C-alpha cells in the first residue's frame, strides 16, 4: 500500500541549524497492517509521517501510495489517499465552524467541491448515526461550534473525520500526546475500534511505550533519521514495554560510547 524508498530530508541545509531529519528510510507497509512508529525526540518519526503526507517534499527517495508515485504531488492531492489525525487537537478541526460543517468538509476529502449544499440531509442522518456510536453525547449538538469541545472530544471527532471517506492510508501523529490520560484512553479505544472494524492501513507515531507494546501488528523504531528496529508478527506480539525501553537504553548507551570514544581519541591525537 505504502512504499517509501530511501527517503532523505535535511532541514535548514548548510546553516548552523542543519538537521538531518530523514537519513535513508525504507519502509513498505502492506494493506491492512497497523504500523506503530516509536523513537526518541528528533529521531525523525514525525518527519517520516509529514514526508508521506506531503507537508514537505523529500530531498531524495521516492514515495508511492496504492501503486501511484506521489513523491512530487502536493499535500492536497495526496489527501485523496490519506486520512490524518494531528498531535494538536486544534490542528485537525476548524474551531469556529460547527461539528456538522467540519464533517461536511471531511466527507468530501479528495473530491471536487462545487456549489451543492455542504450539509445535505443524507450527511446529517449518517453523521448523527455515527457520532452517536462515539458515546460522547454529541449527536444532539452537531450545530455547536467544534471550538466549544474538549481536546479529547475534538480528537475523537477528528479520527472519525479522517476515516469518514475510507483512506488508503491513515496517519496518526502522536494523536493522544496532548490529551489527559482518561481522554487519551478513550481515543485509543476508539482508534482500535475503527481500525479493527475497517481494517485500515495505518501508520501511527507514538511517544508512549505502553501504546507501542500493546497496539498494532508491527513496530518500527527510529533513531537519527533511520529505522533501527523493525519488529513484526510473533516478535511484535512478544514485545513488552520493558523490552522496548531496553532497546532505547541500548541505543543511548551505544551513543554515549561513541561520544566517549570520540572524546578519548580527540584527547589522544588532537
Amino acid at each position: 500500500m505504502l512504499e517509501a524508498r530511501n527517503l532523505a530530508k535535511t532541514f535548514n541545509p548548510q546553516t548552523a541549524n542543519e538537521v538531518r531529519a530523514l537519513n535513508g528510510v525504507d519502509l513498505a507497509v502492506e494493506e491492512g497492517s497497523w504500523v506503530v512508529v516509536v523513537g526518541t525526540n528528533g529521531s525523525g518519526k514525525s518527519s517520516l509521517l509529514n514526508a508521506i503526507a506531503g507537508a514537505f517534499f523529500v530531498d531524495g527517495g521516492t514515495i508511492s501510495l496504492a501503486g501511484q508515485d506521489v513523491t512530487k504531488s502536493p499535500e492536497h492531492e495526496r489527501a485523496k489517499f490519506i486520512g490524518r489525525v494531528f498531535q494538536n487537537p486544534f490542528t485537525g478541526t476548524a474551531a469556529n465552524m460547527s461539528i456538522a460543517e467540519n464533517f461536511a468538509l471531511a466527507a468530501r476529502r479528495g473530491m471536487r467541491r462545487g456549489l451543492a449544499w455542504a450539509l445535505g440531509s443524507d450527511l446529517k442522518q449518517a453523521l448523527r448515526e455515527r457520532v452517536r456510536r462515539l458515546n460522547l453525547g454529541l449527536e444532539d449538538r452537531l450545530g455547536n461550534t467544534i471550538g466549544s469541545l474538549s481536546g479529547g472530544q475534538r480528537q475523537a471527532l477528528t479520527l472519525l473525520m479522517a476515516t469518514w471517506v475510507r483512506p488508503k492510508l491513515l496517519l496518526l501523529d502522536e494523536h493522544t500526546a496532548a490529551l489527559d490520560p482518561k481522554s487519551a484512553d478513550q481515543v485509543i479505544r476508539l482508534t482500535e475500534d475503527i481500525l479493527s472494524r475497517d481494517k485500515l492501513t495505518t501508520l501511527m507515531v507514538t511517544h508512549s511505550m505502553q501504546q507501542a507494546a500493546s497496539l498494532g501488528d508491527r513496530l518500527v523504531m527510529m533513531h537519527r533519521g533511520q529505522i533501527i528496529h523493525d519488529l513484526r508478527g510473533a516478535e511484535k506480539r512478544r514485545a513488552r514495554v520493558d523490552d522496548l525501553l531496553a532497546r532505547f537504553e541500548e541505543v543511548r548507551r551505544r551513543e554515549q560510547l561513541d561520544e566517549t570514544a570520540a572524546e578519548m581519541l580527540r584527547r589522544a591525537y588532537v
Partner: protein
Amino acid sequence: MTLLIGALSLGLILSFLALGVLISFKILRFPDITADGSLPLGAAIAAVLLVQGVEPTLATAAAFCGGLIAGAITGVLHTRFKIHGLLAGILVMTALYSVNLDIMGRSNVPLISEVTLASYAERTGAAVLGHGNLNLWGWEVSIRDAFVFGGVLIAISVAGVCLYLFFRTNLGTAMRAAGENDQMIRALGVNVEHMITFGLAFSNGLIGLAGALLAQYQGFADIQMGIGMIVLGLASVIIGDALVGSGSLGLSVAGAVMGSVLFRLLVAIALRWGLDPNDLKLVTAVFVFLALVAPNFLSRLGKRPALGEASGIGAR
C-alpha cells in the same frame, strides 16, 4: 430627510465594500488592502463605459469583473510568488492608481448627463408615481431618492443572501475553513492557494461593484475616491460585529451591511454637527484603532488575560 435617506443609500452602496472586506479580513483572514485601488477601478470602468453610452447594467457588471481581476492578481502575487499579503495588496493598489488614470484619461469623469442605474431608478419612480415628492409618514422625500434607495436595498439584500448561501455550499465551507485552519483543510484535499486567490477575486469584485454604484450615485468617478476605503470597510465590519456579534455566518453578513449603514449615519450626524469633512478619515482611523484595541483592553481591566485576538481581525 434628504440627508437621512442620502446617508442610508450611501451606506447601502458601501455595504458592497463591507461585504468584500468581510470576505478578505474575516473569512480568509487575509489583510487585503487592494480595496483602495479596486473601488476606484470599478468606478473608472463603469464611468468610462457609461460615457460611451454602454448599458448601465453592463457597465456595472464590467466593473465587477475589473475588481475580480484586481483581486485575483493580489491573490496570485501572494500564493504563487510568496509575497507577504499586505505587500501584495499594496503593490496592486499602487499599480491600480496608474491603471485607473489610464482608464479614465483624466482624474475626474462626470456622469451628470449620462444614463446610469440612478437614472433608471428615477425613471421607474416617475413611471409609477410621477415626479415630485413622496410623503412617507409625514416626511417629504423626493421620488428619485426613494427609488434609488429602494433599488440599492434590493441589490444589497440579494447580494447578501447569495453570499450567505454560497458560504453554505461545499465550495464556500472549504473557503471558510481555508481562512480558519489551512493545515486542516489541506489535509482534507483542498488547494488553499486557489481558495485564497478565488476569495480575494470575489471580494474585490464586490468592492469594484461598490465603486461602480458609488460613481453612479454621486454622479462622477474620481481618482481619489479610493483613499481610506479599506479602513471604511473595516469600520463597517467592526460595527457589525459589535451590533450582532460574530457568532454565526448569517449574522456576520447582515452585520456588515448594518454596520456600513450605521457608520454612514454617524458620519452624516457628525458632519451636521460641524465636523470638518477633512478630518473624516482621521476620525475613521482612530475609530477603527479603538475598536481593535478595546476588546483586549477591556479584558485586561477584567483581570483576565487577553484571549488571543478577540475580534478575529488580525494580520495573517
